[in-house]
């Protein structure tokens, strides 16, 4: 497993996909660390991101804003993004706000990696 770039952010790579774990409460402090970690992974050559929400109980407005920033960065880098293990309350929130139009929702990390691997075979045009 890769070393986390921030104190609270866990991450690891599977091929060219980075898996980043969100913390229990996605607020500004933890959110910005996750955003930095995602940027780092993309700069290191990752072509897809999985953000795993298995530990996340709550995402507030700040969390939503930061996730949109990550989606933005990923899109600009031509990278795909998947959210895995999102609880039903948060799924409802993401659907309501339109985040699900920009990401793949997966049951768990394994499913997310499988889905994204399909995109990895397609060459990225920057």
């Amino acid at each position, binding site marked *: 497993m890769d070393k986390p770039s921030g104190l609270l952010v866990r991450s690891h790579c599977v091929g060219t996909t980075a898996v980043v774990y969100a913390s229990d409460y996605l607020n500004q402090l933890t959110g910005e660390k996750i955003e930095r970690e995602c940027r780092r992974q993309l700069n290191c050559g990752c072509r897809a991101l999985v953000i795993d929400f298995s530990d996340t109980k709550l995402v507030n*407005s*700040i969390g939503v804003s930061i996730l*949109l920033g990550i989606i933005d960065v990923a899109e600009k880098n031509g990278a795909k993004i998947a959210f895995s293990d999102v609880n039903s309350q948060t799924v409802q929130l993401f659907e309501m*706000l339109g*985040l699900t139009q920009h990401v793949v929702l997966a049951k768990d990390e394994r499913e997310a990696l499988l889905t994204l691997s399909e995109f990895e075979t397609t060459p990225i045009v920057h």
Partner: protein
Amino acid sequence: MELSTQKLIHTFGALADLGQEIAGRGDFTEMVRTSMHLLLGTLALRRGAVAECVESELRPVASWGVTDQIFRELSISCEEKQEFHTGEVSDFLISSSPGSSNFVNRYRERFAQEEIALLLPMIVRDEITGVVLLGRKASGEEFSPDDFETVHAMVRHIGVGIHTHRLLEQVAQRAEENRRLYEELRTIYRATVRSFAAAIDAKDKYTQGHSERVGRYSEIIARELGWNEDEVEGIQIAGYLHDVGKLVVDRDIINAPYNINAKESSELNRHPAAGYEILAPINHPYADIPLMAKYHHERLDGRGYPEGLRDEQIPLGAKIVSLADSFDAMTTDRPYRRRRSFEDVVRDLRENSGTQFDGKVVAAFARALLKEVNGQSKERRITKMLGKDYLQGENISMLLTDLITDLTSVGSGAQSYK
């Protein structure tokens, strides 16, 4: 849960968080940054920025997905600011072309390049504090009237937060200016007092520097007794001014090169009360300076003047000035006698503690001097005032140690006046 209910809960949560953030007393930039995230996250807006209006400039405080470069390109005129006061929200939609806002029209293309969809002014008390730039919704939907309401409410909140912060900054700046002015006044006051002390001493050709030294001795004793900085400064001033009443005493009596007679002595003894009369009308920045001058010739046994007060009736400050005054008188040459030896002075202090001097005050002074003699104190202020030849001999330290022991031991004879 119905979608509208869920949306409402999400919005209320964000508004509550925003209120808390703005009411908090944290870092300004962090407050604006968090507020911006709350605003963007409420409607899931892809990007946004908050900028302050500084004259015609727009300075970014927080941005997300918007480059700072755009702010370097923007400038806003007074007329354009005025338009913000009268405009409708739809005027500030970048897509509604052409709106009535000249500012938006002027930069419409540039905003579009940055994918800015909406520009909202922050107006507090008829003043533009800044603008908020917002990107499109992640859902791709257009802004609904409800969205406008929400955005408007949140932008007003952020505007108030920025305005309040600026006000607090101004208050802090004024407070700092006042503090500096007060400090300057204190410096001027101290300098004036010292000049005054020199003028007092100039009247007596044999006691030059006496008031200055009494001020310094008093300060040293007060510090040793644990007084705070303000109190220490106050007693130093009292020391400088303790003899101000001598200005009204006949110069010939002050300068008499012989032991003065009873009538002359009575005239001289007027000086503490006269000093009080001079000092009392002045609004000193420190407490009790006139009283310290008035009572610096009082004695614990009630045989002092002008009122014959006893121990507890005498302010501690006056007891300190009294000791400093006597110590300087004993350790400096006078026209009719040489200064006394240190052994003699210590004997006098021991004998008169409890009758003339307060034992605790004498002990404090002895401790301060002992620290200098033993090298425990970096500064050698007392020894400097006494002159390098005065404290000679190996028994100085022992004399002081014995004096302190005698004065601090329970049931000391020195306290027998009680």
